[in-house]
């Protein structure tokens, strides 16, 4: 089990969720638990159902069966924006900022959740930009940013909602080693600040550095779970996932 502290109510949990698409089962009877303060890595080959699982957790998709809980409360049917208000922040695999608006304004989009007044939202957004290291480009058009900064902006917008748990969907993809290093530092910092993290990641080095627990998905089902070291040595994982890469 992923849970280490038995008895405590997990922060985010799904039990036996199933999601079917025409002709395939994208997520098949997956149960995971994320405790407060945890950093959970989700890995698996392309098409394993990682993003679908994210969408089930955040509400973009509804499961065909199974339940999703947040702090023990059933949220299976609740819409995305309500979950965002509860404290589920997420980034998208394909970053799509509002190109014509400034970086600050893009970040404000998230800040409005907790700060309906424009002035407060702006202050919160500025604070977040400082934290993620985008303050120097706050007034630039989001469309003009290079990819690494756009990825960071995606994180900033999610952070501005002041999430309890942040779901990161391949935020490192397409970044060079230096930028990955910076991103890892940022997530370390967020974790120390008390934000629970769930990340989909292809870069196993990043997973090893950041996560305490790892879940491996393959063909929509959980193949293995445990600490990074345990999981990455698991023979099935080596075969199903790493085998493809070598």
């Amino acid at each position, binding site marked *: 089990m992923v849970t280490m502290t038995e008895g405590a109510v997990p922060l985010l949990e799904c039990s036996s969720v199933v999601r079917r698409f025409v002709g395939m089962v994208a997520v098949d009877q997956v149960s995971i638990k994320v405790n407060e303060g945890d950093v959970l890595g989700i890995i698996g080959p392309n098409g394993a159902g990682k993003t679908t699982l994210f969408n089930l957790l955040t509400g973009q998709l509804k499961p065909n069966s199974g339940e999703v809980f947040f702090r023990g409360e059933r949220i299976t049917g609740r819409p995305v924006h309500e979950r965002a208000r509860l404290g589920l922040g997420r980034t998208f695999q394909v970053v799509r900022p*509002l190109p014509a*608006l400034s970086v600050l304004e893009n970040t404000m989009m998230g800040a409005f959740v907790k700060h309906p007044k*424009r002035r407060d939202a702006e202050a919160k957004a500025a604070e977040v930009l400082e934290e993620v290291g985008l303050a120097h480009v706050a007034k630039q058009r989001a469309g003009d940013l290079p990819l690494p900064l756009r990825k960071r902006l995606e994180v900033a917008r999610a952070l501005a909602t002041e999430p309890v748990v942040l779901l990161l969907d391949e935020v490192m993809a397409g970044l060079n080693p230096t930028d990955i290093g910076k991103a890892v530092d940022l997530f370390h910092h967020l974790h120390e600040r008390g934000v629970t993290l769930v990340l989909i990641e292809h870069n196993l080095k990043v997973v090893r550095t950041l996560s305490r627990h790892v879940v491996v998905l393959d063909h929509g089902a959980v193949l293995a779970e445990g600490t990074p070291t345990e999981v990455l040595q698991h023979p099935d994982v080596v075969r199903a996932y790493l085998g493809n890469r070598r």
Partner: protein
Amino acid sequence: MSTQVTPRTDALGSIAKTLRGGSAGASPALVWGLYAVSMAFLGLLLMIVQVDAYWLNILIMTYLFGGLAAAWNLIGGFGGQLSLGHGVYFAVGAYVVGITSTRYDWSPWLGMVLAVPIACAVAGLTSWPTFRLRGPFFAMATLALNQVALVLALYFDKVTGGPAGITMPFAPSLREAAFIERWKYGVLVLVYLMVAVALSTWMSRSRLGYALRAVRENDEAASAAGFHVFKVKMHGMLLSAGVTAVGGAIYAMYIRYIDPGSVLSLADVSVRLVLICLLGGIGTATGPVLGALLLIPAITLLQAKLSSQAPGLNLVAVGAMLVLIPLLMRRGIVGTVADLTRKATTRWSR
């Protein structure tokens, strides 16, 4: 905040930004200062033009349509919900004033007040199913609404006067909103335009305005940022429909004749509002005003010049604009100018 930019780029950049309507980065003083200056300019223009009855009429229609386009822009531009059915809310405004004043002897001002909740109710009921649709499907459904409204307005002649329409008697008085001094209508439409543009300016800086733009760009990301997408669209639509209905009411006060063929005409109302915004710059606070200032006089003059040569020739020009603007000047005048100034400012700051 540690957002230090060189002063020169900041000043130039924020004026450019303000012009393009994404005024959030600019200081409120600058935004509202620009608003005051441009409104004062429009007032001055009215004072100069009012001596000439022909041009006064053109200016009145320009300001009225500027206000209406700004109203459309609230949901169509900021929210990206391409409504081709705003003629319905315009018609509601015109008909409520026409019917209540001729039938129940209400003051048109009172009719105007009643028109707003009715238009909002119509907007709410029709948007509830159609907001599930995206892109072209939404446009098609709203176009259909306009045509259904036309059919209904022609059919229920006991209420609307059918094809013959409603003629409002002209008894000059403030109560009847009937003025012999035509410039008073000029003041009326100027106030309307000022309110509509003030709303747009507020919108470009408010939570609702950001929410609408977020929905327009990417509704998944908008809901992940905590916005209730349906509610956001609905608020934008209700606001837009209400302001449009007020414009329809003013139209009735001024023209004093309401018939389905005019107020529900696609080319003259629903599509014209879109064309004005397209020309000026969709989703910007200043675009609708600029668009109207160019388009309405042009359309009126074209009508006078070309339709005497062959019927419909003036509309060929209007249609051609609708084809050419997307191809050549996609972001409208405001967007194009802003792009140029942005290029200039970035060059300066390097």
